[in-house]
């Protein structure tokens, strides 16, 4: 569960280019809720996600994860609850390391990285089994450097990496923005399946209204740093795609 209390975020405070990215946002995202965030550029979606993950600090307000106040915790400590998929496929993976090594680090997200060898035959088998579920034929390439894969493949793998270790929360920041339609579909369908299977609390940012309509059980439209519309599962299921297009006109 994610709780945001009166979050304010001001960039370049006191300068001419001062921007209020989030203006007193309060929000509770329940366990198992799959929230879709839409809104035009600069409406504060990514800032909101970064504040949940700890990549950005708040100007004022509190962030609670599972009712524990984490406002002061840095990103690398919040990772014990949070897994993320970035907009840029390059951000979520290490290109020079092998796929196997990338998965190894992901499998240790919530624990210490000890000076012992952890990449062994059973681990390799586990990774291959997980990767084969994608149906991309990558399971035989686990020794290859991550950098040799396409953006779509890397994004799909990042998604699988997020559930290599226990996670409560999955943050998806426009995960398909850089992908072709086919890869985008695989990534979003995989995400949807994982969120349901592991009962994750998930937040998806997207500019694709069709995706926003199809996935998730709650939708929020943001504008100028505030929550403009907030529709629960029931309201979202009744929502027509046409209505959503009207939000942006």
């Amino acid at each position, binding site marked *: 569960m994610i709780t945001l209390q009166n979050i304010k975020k001001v960039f370049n405070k006191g300068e001419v280019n001062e921007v209020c990215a989030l203006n007193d946002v309060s929000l509770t995202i329940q366990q198992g809720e799959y929230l879709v965030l839409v809104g035009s550029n600069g409406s504060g979606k990514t800032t909101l996600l970064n504040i949940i993950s700890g990549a950005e600090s708040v100007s004022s307000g509190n962030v609670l994860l599972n009712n524990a106040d984490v406002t002061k915790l840095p990103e690398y400590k919040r990772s014990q609850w949070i897994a993320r998929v970035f907009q840029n496929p390059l951000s979520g*993976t290490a290109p020079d390391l092998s796929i196997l090594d990338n998965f190894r680090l992901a499998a240790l997200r919530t624990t210490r990285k000890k000076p012992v060898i952890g990449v062994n035959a059973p681990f390799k088998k586990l990774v291959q089994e997980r990767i084969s579920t994608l149906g991309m034929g990558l399971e035989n390439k686990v020794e290859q450097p991550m950098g040799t894969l396409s953006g779509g493949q890397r994004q799909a793998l990042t998604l699988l990496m997020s559930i290599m270790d226990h996670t409560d929360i999955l943050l998806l920041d426009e995960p398909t923005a850089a992908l072709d339609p086919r890869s985008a579909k695989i990534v979003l369908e995989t995400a949807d399946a994982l969120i349901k299977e592991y009962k994750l609390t998930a937040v998806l940012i997207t500019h694709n209204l069709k995706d926003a309509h199809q996935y998730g059980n709650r939708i929020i439209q943001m504008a100028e740093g505030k929550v403009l519309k907030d529709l629960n599962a029931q309201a979202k299921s009744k929502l027509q795609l046409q209505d959503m297009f009207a939000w942006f006109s």
Partner: protein
Amino acid sequence: MEFYLTAIMLGLCLSAMALGIFITMKIFGIPDITTDGSYTLGAVLTAVLLTAHWPAWAIIPVVMLAGAFAGSLTGLIHTKLKIDALLAGILVMTGLYSINLTILGRSNVPLLNVQTVFNYLHPFANDIYNEALTGLIFIAVLSATLGYLLKTDFGIAMRAVGNSASMTRALGINNDVMKITGLAMANALTALSGYLVAQYQNFTDINMGIGIVITGLGSVLIGDALIKWWSIQSIVAQLLTVLAGSIVFQLVLAFTLSVGVDPNLLKLVTSVMVLLIVSIPRLRMKKV
């Protein structure tokens, strides 16, 4: 022939530093300038302690700890004060010059009538081979340890930090701690090179570290070129390639001297050589 053997030996002694530079290149993407200072620091401590009749083996931990301290200082300045890694290295290197001079007491100390680390093993009649054996043992132990460490979970995390900082943060890795640890390790290795070279050439000079980072960088670049060329994946093989790079670098330097280049121009030759290694791949790319 002996001339080239000396070059190979020097390459072997300097390869510890090359391994250190390899690590910092992996975590920062830039060479760590502290190297110039921590290399001399290693040599200076070796000279002072050997003259004080310490056994050579007992000096090893002292030298490595001192190097690690210098490296973590650079790391702290870079991560906690948010100062550019290059500048942080230059600051520590400059400060170390005075510290080195204070420890050594004068600008150079010969190490002629002392028992150096190269005097312990005598399986061969020719001392050159005995020295080479000692050097080889040192480097073999170092590369085996380092190779193992970089393959562990901790090592994978360290390699990932320079590769994708956003990923490592999201995977629960404290990037600052990793950078400080990496710099400490790298400079401990560099100081060990100073320890070896001082005893191999039987003197310590306060200026011996000037520009040494370029030598290390050259070795790593030669190694990197080979790694790309043969697409070497295994980290242990990559370390061995860097070792080879260090030896090749010294051989090429020795060759230029043997064809009659004035030894006073050695640093110029070194930097031109590194410039060539860096620029040749780029020039070739332009044509395509």
